């Protein structure tokens, strides 16, 4: 299974036979006062800085969220998209629940974008899938349904099957869906991590679908979050996770993901691992 995303002539491949794909999460005004204020005023220079810093740190795709309190989301998401396109070649992922905002961004994007996201709720899929089809975009399919969050791995597998089937009804192929197996917060439920890992294994073996996890939530409310996030990603990758929305500027996460690529057989002659080590050495010497 191979999912592609593209911007102009740059194509990104997602799949078990490719290096793990990092979708940078930092262009998001939630809990970030300066970024929110500048975006609300139509100033996307901080968003551009975040785009460059994340690509430099190793992001392959950039998530763009322009949900500023009280803002005109379609105009802001389109504005942020155009601004980010000026400074980077990384394909984009549009993060909104507002179909108008998604359409506004998709219509100015030259390539195959990723929509973040639809759930497995009927009403939502009926809106998002036609939009994806119209713009030739791939879609993140979050495994919540009309009844909320499926509690067990088996229920999440069934929800994923339903979501893929419905996508098919709209002419969207399995490879154009990234299933989000739901990382819930482990500080509120100490079994949440295990259930997500079991879901990933089950979806990988039964459906072979590519997956994308929002991987920073899992450690909410705990100390030393980056270590928890990095370990969680490594465990998830061994079970079949192929991409994640996370913070590439966190060194612990970046290094862990490079080691995972190496150990999963996606780093020919260990060259990327060695190069990354030399880069860290050089940076440490310069500091």
């Amino acid at each position, binding site marked *: 299974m191979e999912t592609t995303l593209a911007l102009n002539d740059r194509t990104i491949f997602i799949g078990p036979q490719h290096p793990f794909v990092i979708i940078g999460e930092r262009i*998001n*005004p*939630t*809990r970030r*006062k300066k970024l*929110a204020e500048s975006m609300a005023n139509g100033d996307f220079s901080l968003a551009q800085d975040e785009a460059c810093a994340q690509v430099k740190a190793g992001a392959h795709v950039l998530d763009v*969220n322009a*949900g*500023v*309190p*009280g803002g005109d989301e379609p105009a802001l998401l389109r504005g942020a998209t155009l601004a980010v396109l000026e400074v980077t070649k990384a394909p984009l992922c549009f*993060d*909104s*629940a*507002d179909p108008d905002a998604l359409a506004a961004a998709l219509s100015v994007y030259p390539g195959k974008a990723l929509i973040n996201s639809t759930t497995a709720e009927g009403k939502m899929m009926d809106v998002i899938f036609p939009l994806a089809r119209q713009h030739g975009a791939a879609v993140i399919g979050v495994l*919540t349904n009309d009844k*909320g*969050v499926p509690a067990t791995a088996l229920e999440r597998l069934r929800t994923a099957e339903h979501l893929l089937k419905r996508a098919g009804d709209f002419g969207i192929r399995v490879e154009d869906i990234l299933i989000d197996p739901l990382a819930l*917060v482990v*500080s*509120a439920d*100490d079994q949440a991590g295990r259930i997500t890992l079991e879901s990933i294994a089950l979806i990988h073996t039964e459906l072979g679908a590519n997956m994308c996890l929002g991987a920073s939530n899992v450690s*909410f*409310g*705990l*100390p030393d979050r980056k270590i928890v996030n990095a370990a969680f990603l490594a465990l998830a990758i061994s079970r079949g996770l192929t991409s994640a929305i996370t913070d590439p500027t966190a060194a612990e996460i970046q290094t862990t993901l490079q080691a995972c690529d190496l150990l999963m057989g996606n780093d020919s002659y260990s060259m990327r691992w060695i190069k990354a080590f030399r880069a860290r050495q050089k940076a440490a010497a310069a500091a």
Partner: protein
Amino acid sequence: MDPKLATIYEAVLEGDMPGAKAGIQAALDAGVAPITILNDGMIAAMAEVGKRFEEGDYYVPEMLISARAMQAGLAILKPHLQSGGDQPAGTVMIGTVKGDLHDIGKNLVALMLEGAGFEVRDLGVDVSADKIVEAIRTGGPDILALSALLTTTMPYMKITIEAIQQAGLRDKVKIMVGGAPVTAEYASQIGADGYSPDASRAVRLAHTLMNA
């Protein structure tokens, strides 16, 4: 502090449920007034838990086990309190707005409000404006607390408040809001009465709104 109350205080602070239950039973057997056990032992401990959380010294699971100790203790204490005729600090209805399934922040606020002596009715997650209007109409709470964790669901707070306005119930209830993307500015923009950045400060805000 009375050593019996200090034992209860420590147990709740440490999230030691058996310790809290045993401490409360021992205090009751020794004739300590139930209202004193509640206020000086349990509510005081939960206030300290909230303070430590607010300052970043306590983490979410520590807050949860303290709340669990508090609730187990309350179950023992409640039958004794009713005869004492205590009044709740106020009644609060709480929920996460439509389209949003996040419940941790909302649950923490509910637990801390209960810990502070409020009577709390939890409407759950993904709660529509209609359902909230109906709940206010039939339940008549002093305060409505709304949570949203996503930039994409936050606008539903505004829709909910507008629906309450249209139903002619806006002056019947104080409204407080919170959640990661929410700000004090946004709260005032949509006509809420207050905003809190965390569960501990939500308790202070609720007290302030009760006295407003």
